[in-house]
């Protein structure tokens, strides 16, 4: 099937997908926390838009509700909560150093290629016009994980986590026109609770280690330092 044969709306979905992927990249590249949160809000909004677009294309009315929930939750509520926390914790200006950013972006590009490679046999199966976007959503999931691996700030990790959720949701929408409503509601509920708990945790962590650097959360380890030294010597 040729891309040109798609309807405009379908092309719109694909464009939105590309934009979602782009926001993922920008999340990876952003070093400032506030900017990260903003990028995340944009991603949420784009996913919501894509959902609405799919609803339009497929005539699935329940997807409108999904789009609405997504927008409310991921583009407004969660970024707002995160923003407030950042302000409250007075880390608005904090800049995170990413180890070797260019390498990270390169790895991200490789991940996209990898997800395309993995998703190839899957896409053959689908009759939906939006099937090409499965690879995109998988890439978003993987990029979210990459972000969690490379970032040291608890908040950016949470942002990475949420962007994984975005990817998942996006996958559900574009590949199958959304999950059954009850599941989606459940997922949204979980997400909401998770956000609250995240909020609680930021304060707890801050209280216990006086920072939000997750690398300093390493009291519970199996290897002790003396032993590591011993191993190096022996």
């Amino acid at each position, binding site marked *: 099937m040729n891309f040109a044969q798609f309807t405009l709306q379908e092309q719109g979905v694909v464009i939105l997908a590309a934009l979602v992927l782009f926001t993922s990249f920008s999340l990876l590249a952003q070093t400032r926390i506030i900017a990260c949160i903003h990028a995340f809000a944009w991603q949420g909004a784009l996913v919501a838009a894509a959902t609405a677009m799919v609803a339009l294309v497929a005539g699935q009315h329940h997807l409108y509700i999904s789009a609405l929930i997504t927008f409310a939750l991921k583009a407004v509520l969660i970024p707002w909560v995160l923003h407030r926390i950042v302000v409250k914790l007075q880390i608005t200006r904090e800049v995170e150093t990413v180890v070797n950013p260019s390498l990270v972006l390169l790895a991200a590009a490789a991940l996209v290629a990898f997800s395309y490679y*993995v998703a190839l*046999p*899957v896409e053959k*199966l*689908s*009759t939906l016009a939006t099937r090409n976007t*499965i690879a995109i959503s*998988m890439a978003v*999931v993987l990029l979210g*994980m990459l972000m*969690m691996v490379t970032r040291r700030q*608890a908040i950016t*990790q949470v942002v990475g*986590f949420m962007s*994984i*959720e975005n*990817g*998942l949701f996006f*996958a*559900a929408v574009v*590949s*199958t*026109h959304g*999950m*059954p409503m*009850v*599941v989606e509601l*459940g*997922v949204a*509920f*979980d997400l909401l*609770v*998770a956000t609250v*708990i*995240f909020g*609680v*945790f930021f304060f*707890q*962590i801050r*209280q*216990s*280690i006086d920072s939000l650097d*997750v690398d300093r*959360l*390493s*009291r*519970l380890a*199996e290897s002790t330092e003396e032993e590591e030294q011993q191993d190096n010597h022996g």
Partner: protein
Amino acid sequence: MNALFATLLIPLLGTLLMAVVPRCRIAGWVNVAFAAATTAASIVLALEIFESGPLLSPGKFFYVDAFNVYLLVLTAFVATTTAIFSRPYMDHELAQGRVNNRRMRLYHAMYQGFLFTMLLALSTNNLGILWVALEGATLATVLLVSLYRTPESVEAAWKYFILCGVGIAQALFGTVLLYFAAASVLTSAEDGLLWTTLHGIAGQLDPTVMSIAFVFLLVGYGTKVGLVPLHNWLPDAHSEGPTPMSAVLSGLLLNVALYAVVRTKMLVDGALAAAPNVPQPQLAGYLMMAFGLLSFLVAGLFLHRQRDIKRMFSYSSIEHMGLMTFAFGLGGPLATFAALLHMTLHSLVKSAIFVTVGHATHIAGTQAIDKIRGLIRTQPTVGWGLLLGTAAIAGFPPFGLFVSEFLLLIATMQSWPWLTVVLLSGLAIAFAGLFRNIHPMVYGNQPEGQTPVKANMLPVYLHLLLALWFGLAIPAVLAQWFDQATQLIAGKGVL
């Protein structure tokens, strides 16, 4: 039907009640009462199922068959006995000032909430809801892990939350892929996440999608099961939370996660077996075997260097979950039967051990292994409980874990003879790791000023007696039950 609703509603009600009522002195008792009521309801449900076969609720929302009904009973039962233990334990913590009344309220509410999510995960027919419930279980427990607000407990909770969150997100992706595969076969996509539907059409599902989905699901739920190398949250969370929580986490939550893996494995197996030209029709089984074996061995080695008693037993849980995963992966009636039996007994024994450990830490005032000494002298019931529990968990007859390990070894012998060597050396290593640490704790002279605590060892000995009973003779009813479950999972029974 009503029994099922009762089973689910009682803990839900409990959650709300406990959350709403502030400063309740008898919260501990109420907790026990709710859990006991749940158990009663689940037993009624189990009898119904046993008499009339699998139960599918009208909206197809719930599905209870032999496999999950026994897990339901087990979950409710262990939750009850742990609640019995939790009451004096938490009172002690309150008296010690480690928690305040507000946190006690949170604790009790979340205890019931956790029970509810687990029961929901077990009884639902919808794989999406299964996911939601499992995530809910994480959410319910994560705050309990950090209940003491020590830096370690916060760190543990954070790791638990993030790692399980990410893991379970992967599982959701797998679920989406499942749905995707089902949607391309079904006309009405609404039913595409119902396990009963999926199981019915498993043969038509696309094998490639299913295998990708299975990878995501395995990694996702596997994180919750505690499979190496996804296990890192587990020892942290178990060691830092309140001990009753460790007991139910180890004894129940891991089971539920494994239950989810097995359910999906059944689907994937169905899809791969029916499809032509699949290079590896037993992919799911192989993956599970590999993960199981790896977890089993690595956890066994880790046991040797533990300094924290609860951490040690959580590694032991990883080890046993590895063993079960391996057994389920091996497939075949005998191995499946063994895995089911092992699951039950591990829950019973491990929760008993954690209860004992809770008392032991109260006696010694610490969780550090090298500070806990001379338990048998100080309080023989606790010391012996720990010793017997450890012997049971290490697979010594006449305790039941021996039976399941025996069956598993035999099953392995039949299909993968050389792996038995690995299994055996793993068992030996794990065993040595456990006992080298247990020994100095229970034996020897007590340190100065160590005094007994008010301990409720009823749950421990009840569980150990059950394990003993199963080891000597599996009751016919239960055997039938296991066999039905085995038939469901492996296609044919052993009896």
